[in-house]
C-alpha cells in the first residue's frame, strides 16, 4: 500500500469530504495560502478557494463560536486552532455552547463541527505551545474526542469526525505530522468510539494513544525478544471510550500500564485506570495499574529537559520490566 504522512492523511480526509459535501469547509488562522502552521492544509486554498478555506483573524473564541453557529444552521465546519494550548481561549464557545446546545434545547439542535488542533511537546516551543489537554475535553458531555496515532487512523477517523453530527475535538500530534504510514487510496472511515489493538500480547497490556503509540510498539517488539508479549491497545477515540476492548485486554493479561504524554495528575490515564479498577478486570489484575505519563510540570524549553518530561523508550521499557517482576 502507498505510504503518506500523517499530515497528508489529514489533508486528504478534508479534501475528500469537501469534494463530496459542499457544506464542509475549513477555517482558521493561516490555513489558506500559507497552508496552516504545520502545513496540514497545503494546497486546499488552491483547490477550494477562499470561500471554503477561510483565513481568520487571530481570534480563537469566535473561530470556535462561529463554527458552532455555522454548524447549527446547516454547515459542517472544520475549524483549526493552531496549537491546542490556544483552546484555552475557545473553551466557552466549545464547552458551554457547542457541546451543550443539543441537550439544552431538548434535542432540537445538531452541531456537526470538527475542531482540529495539534497537541504535544517535542518541538522546542516550550510551555505555551506544547501541552496535551485532551483530558479537559473528555470531561465535557456532548463532545467527542479523537487522537489518532497513525496516518491510517488519522484519515479514517477525521472523515468519520466530519461526517459525525456532533462537535468533535480532533487532536493531532505535532511529532507525528511527518511520519509516514500505509493509507489505502480507496474510501474508508473508522468509526468513532472503537479502540484498536495495535499489537496482540498476553503478558501485559499497554493502553496508550497518539504519539506515544510508536515508542510503545517499538519497546513491545524489543521485549518480545525476551519473551514478554505486550498487548498495545489504542483507544483512538477517548470520548466515547471503548471500555469493553480495554477491559477485555486487562482481563486477558492481568497487568495494565497506561502511557500518555499529558501531565500525569488529572490526565486521561486516570479515567482509564478508574474504568478498569471499577470493572470485572479488577478481579484478574495481578499488579497495580501503572500510569507512566508526563511529569507534573510545564514543558521546559531545553531539548534534554523537554525530552525527559514525557515517557521515553527507556522509561516505558523500565516500567514493563518492573511490572513483569
Amino acid at each position, binding site marked *: 500500500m502507498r505510504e503518506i504522512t500523517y499530515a497528508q492523511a489529514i489533508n486528504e480526509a478534508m479534501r475528500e469530504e469537501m469534494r463530496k459535501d459542499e457544506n464542509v469547509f475549513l477555517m482558521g488562522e493561516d490555513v489558506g495560502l500559507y497552508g496552516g502552521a504545520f502545513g496540514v492544509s497545503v494546497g486546499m486554498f488552491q483547490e477550494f478557494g477562499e470561500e471554503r478555506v477561510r483565513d481568520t483573524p487571530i481570534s480563537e473564541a469566535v473561530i470556535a463560536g462561529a463554527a458552532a453557529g455555522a454548524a447549527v*444552521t446547516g454547515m459542517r465546519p472544520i475549524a483549526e486552532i493552531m496549537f491546542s494550548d490556544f483552546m484555552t481561549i475557545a473553551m466557552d464557545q466549545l464547552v458551554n455552547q457547542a457541546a451543550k446546545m443539543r441537550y*439544552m434545547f*431538548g434535542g432540537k439542535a445538531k452541531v456537526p463541527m470538527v475542531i482540529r488542533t495539534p497537541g504535544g511537546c517535542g518541538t522546542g516551543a516550550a510551555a505555551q505551545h506544547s501541552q496535551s489537554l485532551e483530558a479537559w475535553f473528555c470531561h465535557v458531555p456532548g463532545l467527542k474526542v479523537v487522537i489518532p496515532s497513525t496516518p491510517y487512523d488519522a484519515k479514517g477517523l477525521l472523515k468519520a469526525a466530519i461526517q459525525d453530527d456532533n462537535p468533535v475535538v480532533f487532536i493531532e500530534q505535532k511529532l507525528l505530522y511527518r511520519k509516514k504510514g500505509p493509507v489505502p487510496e480507496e474510501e474508508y472511515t473508522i468509526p468513532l468510539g472503537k479502540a484498536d489493538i495495535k499489537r496482540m500480547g498476553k503478558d501485559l497490556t499497554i493502553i496508550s494513544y497518539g504519539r506515544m503509540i510508536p515508542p510503545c510498539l517499538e519497546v513491545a517488539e524489543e521485549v518480545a525478544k525476551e519473551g514478554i508479549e505486550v498487548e498495545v491497545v489504542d483507544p483512538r477515540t477517548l470520548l466515547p471510550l471503548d471500555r469493553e476492548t480495554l477491559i477485555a485486554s486487562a482481563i486477558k493479561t492481568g497487568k495494565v500500564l497506561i502511557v500518555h504524554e499529558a501531565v500525569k495528575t488529572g490526565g486521561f490515564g486516570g479515567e482509564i485506570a478508574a474504568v478498569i479498577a471499577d470493572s470485572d478486570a479488577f478481579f484478574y489484575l495481578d499488579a497495580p495499574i501503572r500510569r507512566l505519563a508526563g511529569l507534573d510540570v510545564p514543558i521546559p524549553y531545553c531539548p534534554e529537559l523537554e525530552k525527559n518530561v514525557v515517557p521515553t523508550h527507556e522509561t516505558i521499557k523500565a516500567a514493563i520490566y518492573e511490572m513483569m517482576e
Partner: protein
Amino acid sequence: MTISKATLEEMYKKMLHVRKFEEKVAYFFSMGMVHGTTHLYVGEEATAVGACSALEEKDLITSTHRGHGHCIGKGIDLNKMMAELLGKETGYCKGKGGSMHIADLSRGNLGANGVVGGGIPIAVGAALTTKMKKIDRVVLCFFGDGAANEGSFHESLNLAAVWNLPLIFVCENNLYGMSVSTAQSMKIQNIADRAAAYGIPGKVIDGNDAVAVYNTVMEAKEYVKEHGPILIEAKTYRWSGHSKSDANVYRSKEEIAEWRKKCPIEGLKKYMLETGVSTIEELKRIEKEAVQEIEQAVEFAQNSPYPSLDTIMDDVYA
C-alpha cells in the same frame, strides 16, 4: 417608512405578551413555583419586539439570558415557552433548558444564552452559513451593554466585518450589566461608537420607541445584505432588578421612576392612537386577547407533566 396597521397591532400585542408573560414569571418566582433564576424583560419590550417585527420568519436571531422578549418578538408558541419556564416536558427544551435556554430553531430563534456575550460568535456563524449558502436572509444578534465588554463581542464584530456578513448587531443598552453601570464599565457614552473600531456603521436609537426600532432594523436589513454588519445601540432600561435576587441597591428610586414614565407599551399605544391607526377599542381588544393568551399558556404549562426521569440521558449526542 410607514408601518401597516396589522404590523403595529401585532407589535402592540407582542409587547403586551412580553409584559404579561414577565408578570406571570415574577409571580411564579415570588411564590417559589419556579426553580432557578430569571431575568425579566419588562421595560425593554420595544427593542425586542420592534427589532424582531422587522424580520421575516426565515431571518435568524441569537438571544441572551434576558431572552423572553426576543422569543416572543420572533414569534413563539407561548404555551411551550411557559411550559419550558416551569420545566415541563411540553416545553421548548423538554424541560431541560429553562428560562435561559429557550430556542425555537423552527422560527429562527437560535436560542437564549446563559453566558454573557456567548451568543455573539454563534450569530457570526449563522451569518456565515447565510452567506455561504447564499440564503436571502439576515441574522440579528441581541446582547447587552455588559456583553459589549467581553472579548467575544470584539472578536465577533471584527470577524463579521471582515467577512461582510449579513448581520445586525443590536446592543440593548439598559445602562447596567447586573449592578455595574455603563459609566463604571466603559469610558464612552455610546456603545455604537465601537462600530468604528471594526469599520462598520454604528447607530444609537431610542430602544423604548418600537417604531424607531422597527424602522431602523428594516433599513439595516437591506444594508447588511449588501455591505456587511451594522451595530445598533438601543437605549432602554429594565424596570425590575437584574434577576430575582436583586435588591436594587445600585439604582435610585428616582431613576427607575423616570424610566417607568417612558413605558414602551404606553408609547406605542399613544403613537397608534395619535396617528389614528387604531382606536382605543381595538387596542383594548388586543390587550384582552394578550392577557387571555398568557393565561392559556399558564394553564397549558401548569397542566403539563414534568419530564420523566428516563429522559435524563437523552439528547446529549445526535
